[in-house]
C-alpha cells in the first residue's frame, strides 16, 4: 500500500491549527487515509480530529501516512507536504 513518512514541521506539533488543517485536507481526499506515529504505531483515520489527537505527535515526530486506491498517491503527496510545512507560521 502506498505510504509516506514525514516529520511534523509545525512548532506546536499536530494539534490545534495544524491538526485542524490536516484533518480538513484529509477529509477532502477521495480516498481514506490513515496516519500513525513512527512506522509501527496504531494507524488511525486521518479525517478524525479526535483520532489524530490521540497520536500526541509533537514537533519533530515522524508519522506515516497510508492510502490505497485511485488517487492515493496524489492524496498522500498533498497531505505529506502539509505536514512538512510549519502550519503555525
Amino acid at each position, binding site marked *: 500500500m502506498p505510504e509516506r513518512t514525514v516529520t511534523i514541521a509545525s512548532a506546536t506539533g499536530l494539534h490545534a491549527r495544524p491538526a485542524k488543517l490536516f484533518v480538513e485536507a484529509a477529509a477532502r481526499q477521495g480516498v481514506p487515509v490513515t496516519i500513525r506515529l513512527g512506522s509501527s504505531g496504531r494507524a488511525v483515520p486521518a479525517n478524525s*480530529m479526535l483520532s489524530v*489527537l*490521540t497520536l500526541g505527535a509533537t514537533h519533530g515526530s515522524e508519522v506515516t501516512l497510508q492510502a490505497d486506491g485511485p488517487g492515493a498517491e496524489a492524496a498522500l503527496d498533498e497531505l505529506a507536504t502539509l505536514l512538512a510545512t510549519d502550519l503555525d507560521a
Partner: protein
Amino acid sequence: MTEAVLDRRAVRLEAVAADREDAIRQCGQALLAVGAVREPYLVTMLERERSISTYVGEGVAIPHGTLAGKDAVLRDALSFLRFPGGVDWGGERVTICIGIAATGDGHVAVLAELAEILLDPERARVLRESGEADEVIAILGGAA
C-alpha cells in the same frame, strides 16, 4: 503533582451558557477558581478560539489558551462543564467543554489522553450522562 488535575470545584454538570464565548469564559473561570491559571489566561483562551475552533467532534470542545498564554498557567489542570441545553459552536452543537491549562509542552500529552477517553464509548458515555461528579473525576483525573 500534589493537586488533582481535575478539582471537584472545576466540575459542573448542569451549566448554562449564552453563547460560545460565555462557555469558554466559564471554563476559564473554573480554572481560575482552583488556582491553576492567572486571569490573563482567559483572554488567550478566547484568542485561541477566534484563531481556530477547539471543537473536536462528538459535541465536545476543548478550550485552551495560546502559546502566549503559557506564562499565565500555574499548574496543569482541567475544568469540565456540561451544557445539557447545548451551545452553538460555529454551527456545531456542543454539550461538553473541557477547559485545559498545561505548562510547557504538556498540552500535547493531555490532548492525546483526552482524545483516547472521548473515543472510548464507555468512558465517553459516563462523561455525557453521569450525574456524579466523582465518576467524571475518576475518568478525567488521570488525563494529565
